[in-house]
């Protein structure tokens, strides 16, 4: 494959986050995005356990167990930070005050339905955390995921078969192969990486895809990561 690595993908997502945005990075891969936010831009990170203005991990020796992120990792607070309780924090989210939230996914449907909290396996211990709140809470919900599962199945689907996290909530899907916008007409290829075309992506996903620009309909000329 000639697409983006996980780290390049994180950088690609970071490039779409404007200065001044209030952003929640979900646990797991989305936390990588923080490493690529330009240092000269002020972007305010929200962590749903009660902090706006989250900074990077502290040095060893300066870990503060009272100051953690939603993944329960030690973090720091930047000048301009504010603490609040859980009801206020999720009010912020549910009330639509966050600009962007970046989440992982098991599946995303053409309509933007998201499945990322349970594989529905019998005997699995269910845990949802803030996933359902995040899914419906931000002005834009970005999904960061691989296009295919390890078994080669598409994570972009006509209908999710895994239990849903939220209905019609995803705005955009970033994968190492392409970036897709969720539109009323289905998924639209916003940008294709490597040698991908709409046709090659349709073959991988089994979906009918729209093209954001004419050149995507034939071959992606652009270098991955540019926009």
């Amino acid at each position, binding site marked *: 494959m000639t697409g983006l690595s996980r780290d390049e993908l994180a950088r690609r997502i970071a490039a779409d986050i404007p200065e001044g945005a209030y952003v929640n990075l979900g646990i797991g891969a989305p936390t990588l995005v923080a490493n690529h936010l330009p240092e000269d831009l002020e972007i305010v990170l929200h962590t749903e356990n009660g902090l706006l203005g989250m900074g990077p991990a502290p040095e060893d020796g300066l870990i503060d167990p009272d*100051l953690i992120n939603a993944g329960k990792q030690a973090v720091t607070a930047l000048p301009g930070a504010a*603490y609040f309780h*859980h*009801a206020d924090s999720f009010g912020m989210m549910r009330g639509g005050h966050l600009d962007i939230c970046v989440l992982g996914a098991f599946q995303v449907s053409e309509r933007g339905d998201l499945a990322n909290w*349970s594989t529905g396996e019998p005997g699995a211990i269910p845990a949802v955390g803030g996933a*359902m709140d995040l899914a*419906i809470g931000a002005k834009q919900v970005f999904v960061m995921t691989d296009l295919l599962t390890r078994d080669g199945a598409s994570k972009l689907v006509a209908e999710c078969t895994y239990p*849903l996290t939220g209905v019609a909530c995803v705005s955009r899907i970033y994968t190492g192969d392409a970036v897709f916008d969720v539109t009323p007409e289905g998924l639209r290829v916003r940008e294709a990486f490597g040698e991908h075309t709409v046709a090659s992506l349709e073959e991988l996903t089994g979906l009918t895809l729209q093209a954001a620009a004419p050149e995507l309909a034939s071959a992606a000329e652009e270098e991955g990561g540019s926009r």
Partner: protein
Amino acid sequence: MIDKTVAGTAEAVAGIADGSTVMIGGFGRAGQPVELIDALIEQGAGDLTVVSNNAGNGDVGIAALLAEGRVRKVVCSFPRQHDSWVFDRLYRAGELELELVPQGNLAERIRAAGAGIGAFYSPTGVGTLLAEGKEERTIDGRRYLLEHPIRADVALVAAYRGDRWGNLVYRETARNFGPIMAAAATTTVVQVDELVELGALDPESVATPGIHVDRVVAVGYRPWIHEGRFVGGVDVNGAPLEQSPESSVAGAVR
């Protein structure tokens, strides 16, 4: 004189009855009232319903309470964690009932109990498995689920500093569920690092006014705090780093 302080954690948790619903503050280990939970284990109440964001980490706190077989049901958002082996074992063995609630609905339902709201419509969880059995309603074109308050007989909360009226300030993200749980329980029991004189807390920073608190007990500063100042020298679980404590304290300038 109003004096809600009690001398020890045993007195703080006295009278908690079998079958009680107990809210336990904290998000992971941050803000988890470990000393009060230890006292509750010692106290002996069983058949409890525990309302908390998580269902225990490692072998301490909520995990220890579960391991002792005191809990019938857990109401939480995220039981499964890398170190939730106690919960995992009991749940798989069918020895624990679980009510899974999305985290924001959990917080808002707890707040609703404290604020006297009969029920509310939340957009979270619409169209998912967790909507089953819940009334759905479309308001201004958006779908919502009817969510009911979660009340408790007792709340166990950890705060940073408190006074004899029960006013509390928290520290950083350890605030998490403390203020809303304190208001949602019939009896609220609080452990603080330090008790201070009445009037010593800034009235603008009091996140839990004493009206929501019944008992306060001082348990001493956490290892990463020294005389009210952050000194570090621990890992994210609060365990001392391998270096000697002296060098840790000395190195903690930030």
